[in-house]
């Protein structure tokens, strides 16, 4: 109270001093000097205008700074003044495609808190907004929108005037609608069941991401500094779907098949039980049937000559290793480049944070290293990919070879990312992938209710048990969802990842995403 009175009194005194200056001007005229000629009227006017312009510019920051979204975000992240009104802005909610609330703000005892009803489930996409630790994920990318800092979000100029005078800037931000399907995402996390892994479900024709799950995750309601110290071996901050790098294993045979189709491959390749190698010094690449026969003490006769469809259905390592070596290094790298391998795809961009998708990592190997090429052709060796990328590859096959840029914000328009293969190749590849499910390695998940197409993967890795993969789409004839499932060290793709993918797709069908 005393402070306010002094504040007002100070301003009144200064105002009065100014008034006096103005009034006493006449009495303090410099009469002993020459009479003023007014020669400096124009310069004085110019100087005054210059400083007035400065004040107007200052007002656009000081008074109407809320219309500068970048400025508001900067202050929310970096201004520690507790009385700064931006800290009182009630951020908009983050909603899934059906309007389910994924994040909202609530005022509890004079302090605004950001709450996440589902805890860690949506953290890989939604991220967090924390007064001390800043923001991440969608909270960072769409911060201007969420703060209602875009012009037009303030209901009227009268409201702005009220806020200016009363210093009450508790404006409410705008809601953000995502493309995610909350129900499916919860199911995905539930089916991963605590095993480290990732699941991505996206719409092939417009790139809308329905599920982007990464396990384990963190609880955005309870952020503390320990989370950022990176001591947790489970790496909860790592978004396994978009950043986790894994050997793709057999799922990468989709890419090799696409390469062969683009090159007009029609014949057969001999696939003996004894396997294939590029020179005598290297271990032979063999098919999984060889190993299972050997383990049970039987002798396996080999596939014999295989065509592309059968080789894909049986996931023959020998066939694809030969295929890769046959086309050579240049063709392989050209294909990888067309498939956007080893790139960073920006999904959503803003000055406060980006949402990016790493496609994978592909090391260049020497031209003489044919064995390395054979290894990469079966998705092993010096090749790593992310689960989201594999979903993107499946979506490209499902969308006649054209990959759409994955998007998470519902109101952003679909945008093509690039042509991964010709429409003809994609048209021939899709039935082959369907055959994998009807008669190949993934026949365990064949369901009469839904025609799923896809490819299993069991990726060897130095850490122990193989990673379990399934990559595919459904329905095979007119695809509406593409999927990629990865379970770290889950074992056989057909046994672990494929059933999860099937459950997700069936649930999507039940909830109307596939019709």
């Amino acid at each position, binding site marked *: 109270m005393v*402070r*306010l009175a*002094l*504040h007002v*009194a*100070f*301003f009144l*005194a*200064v*105002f*009065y*001093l*100014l008034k*006096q*200056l103005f009034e*006493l*001007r006449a*009495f*303090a005229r*410099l*009469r*002993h*000097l*020459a*009479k*003023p*000629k007014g*020669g*400096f009227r124009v*310069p*004085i006017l110019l*100087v*005054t205008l*210059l*400083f007035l*312009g*400065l*004040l107007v*510019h*200052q007002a656009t*920051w*000081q*008074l109407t*700074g809320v219309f500068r979204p*970048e*400025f508001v975000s*900067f*202050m929310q992240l*970096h*201004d*520690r*003044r*507790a*009385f*700064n*009104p*931006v800290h009182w802005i009630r951020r908009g909610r983050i909603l899934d495609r059906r309007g389910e609330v994924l994040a909202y703000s609530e005022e509890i005892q004079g302090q605004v808190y950001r709450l996440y009803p589902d805890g860690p489930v949506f953290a890989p996409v939604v991220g967090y907004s924390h007064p001390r630790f800043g923001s991440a994920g969608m909270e960072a990318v769409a911060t201007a929108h969420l703060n209602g800092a875009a012009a037009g979000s303030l209901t009227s100029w009268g409201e702005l005037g009220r806020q200016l*005078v009363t*210093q009450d800037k508790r404006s409410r931000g705008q809601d953000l609608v995502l493309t995610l399907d909350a129900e499916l995402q919860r199911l995905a996390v539930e089916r991963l069941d605590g095993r480290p892994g990732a699941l991505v479900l996206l719409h092939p024709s417009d790139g809308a991401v329905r599920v982007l799950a990464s396990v384990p995750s963190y609880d955005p309601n309870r952020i503390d500094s320990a989370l950022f110290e990176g001591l947790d071996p489970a790496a909860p901050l790592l978004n396994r779907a978009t950043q986790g790098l894994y050997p793709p294993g057999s799922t990468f045979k989709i890419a090799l098949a696409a390469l062969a189709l683009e090159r007009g491959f029609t014949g057969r390749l001999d696939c003996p039980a004894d396997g294939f190698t590029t020179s005598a010094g290297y271990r032979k690449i063999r098919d999984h049937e060889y190993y299972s026969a050997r383990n049970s003490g039987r002798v396996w006769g080999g596939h014999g000559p295989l065509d592309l469809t059968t080789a894909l259905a049986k996931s023959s390592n020998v066939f694809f290793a030969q295929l890769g070596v046959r086309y050579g290094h240049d063709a392989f790298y050209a294909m990888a480049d067309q498939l956007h391998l080893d790139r960073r795809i920006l999904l959503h961009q803003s*000055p406060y944070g980006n949402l990016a998708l790493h496609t994978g990592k592909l090391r260049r190997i020497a031209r003489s290293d044919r064995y390395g090429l054979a290894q990469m052709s079966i998705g092993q060796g010096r090749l790593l990919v992310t689960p989201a990328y594999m979903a993107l590859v499946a979506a490209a096959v499902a969308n006649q070879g054209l990959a759409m840029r994955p998007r998470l914000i519902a109101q952003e328009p679909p945008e093509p990312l690039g042509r991964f293969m010709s429409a003809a190749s994609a048209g021939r590849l899709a039935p082959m992938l369907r055959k994998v499910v009807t008669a190949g390695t993934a026949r365990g998940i064949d369901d009469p209710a839904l025609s799923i197409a896809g490819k299993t993967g069991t990726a060897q890795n130095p850490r122990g048990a193989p990673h379990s993969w399934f990559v595919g789409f459904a329905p095979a004839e007119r695809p509406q969802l593409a999927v990629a499932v990865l379970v770290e060290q889950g074992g056989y793709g057909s046994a672990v990842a494929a059933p999860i993918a099937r459950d997700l797709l069936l649930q999507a069908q039940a909830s109307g995403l596939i019709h």
Partner: protein
Amino acid sequence: MSPARKPRNAPLSLRATWDLRWPERQLLLWCLLCMLLGFLMLLVAGYAEGRAFHPLDSLPVVIYAVSLVLMHLTLVAARFQGDQILLSSLAFLMGFGMLAQYRMGSLDAADLTDPGLYLFPAGVLLMLAICVALMRGRYERLAGGLWIWAGASLALVAGLLILGERYRGAVYGAGLVTPTELLKVMVVLFLASFIARHAKRLGNWGKGLPKPPVRDLMPLAGFWLALTGLLLVQRDLGMFIILSLTMLLMLVAGTGRRAYLVLGALAATGLGYLVLALFAHGQNRIKAWLSPFQDPTGNSWQILQGLSGMYSGGLWGEGFGQGNPEYTPIAQSDFIYAVIGEELGFVGCSLLVVFFLVFFSRGLGIADQTRSPFGRLLCVGLTSVLATQTFLNLGGVTKFIPLTGITLPFISHGGSSLITGFISLGLMLAVSEGVPPKPRARPTAAGTKRPKPDAPPSPASSRRGRGRRSKARPTEEPEETSR
């Protein structure tokens, strides 16, 4: 006493001076009241944070009051007839500066040996000394030192370059004092004397196609090139801009040739590109100005923190002493305006700007009424230096223009800048006192002090002007003195 019979510009009696300066008295009292209220605001905010009362806490206000009294009494005792508005607006700005520095903790009242505490009174004393020493037209003698000023300016910058130490990219003297601040006065003195002496030839742009008088500009151009070189080596971009702009404005004011502005604009464009190409930190500042959110936590951190503070302050401000200016780097010097914006709001900032405008327009007003070309140019130059400096600082802090890293006159922390400001003001006050009439031309009736015989002859134009206007006597004077 009958002032009506006295000739214009004759020395006044003590009593008459006392009567003449009543507006100043009243304004200074109001300044004191304003500062008292501001100081109370600070104290209350301090106590709210749990600081105990200390009798020495009131020292800044006492010092301020003593300075004002000293200022007024000295001027009256010296029978000073010069400007009162300029002095009052200075008193306000200086009080504001003291408050701001006290608030930022740069004035430590508990430590009586803190030199910062005595900087303001020292400045006032210096200003009074200069004013009294140079009043009654004695300032004209400064014009004789034409090449001394030029030599001293160059020697100062060159000497600093050799002996100074580098800190934050700029060159400083011992103890982070910036002696280059003195350039602002010395260069103006040089320019004023040079242009006043050669006004006619510098204004001769020929008939027909206008062409600058290249040969007459040569000495000026040589000096300017040497100064520019030395300043740019020291990376003192702000000083360079201030002095160059001042030179242009003085040329225009001295010769009446607006074409100099065109010439200056051309030179500025060329030099601007050159400077930007040469200096990396200049480019960084342009970048921080154009796109502050490209690198918000690095390059633009300071300016964005300042703006955040101002935004927090809003229209009325958070209250003096209640903000968090410590979040803005170097807030007490270059970014003091952001602190004012945070704690006194947009209204406080506007008031400060208005006082600065009063100050500048009064400075130009004095120039307008001064017939002596040297005095007139001196006023224009000093006002232009202060105005440019103010604009560069305020514009930089509010992101109106790129940041140049210079101080706000009279408000910012920085002894050299403050002292230079007071020296400038002393000179302007001396000029505002005018040139006394020559004893031969008009016999003095009531003067107790005879004009010194060695006073320089006032320029012809001034004498003529006086003669013409001696009939039009002011009529308000008796009314004034009755107060």
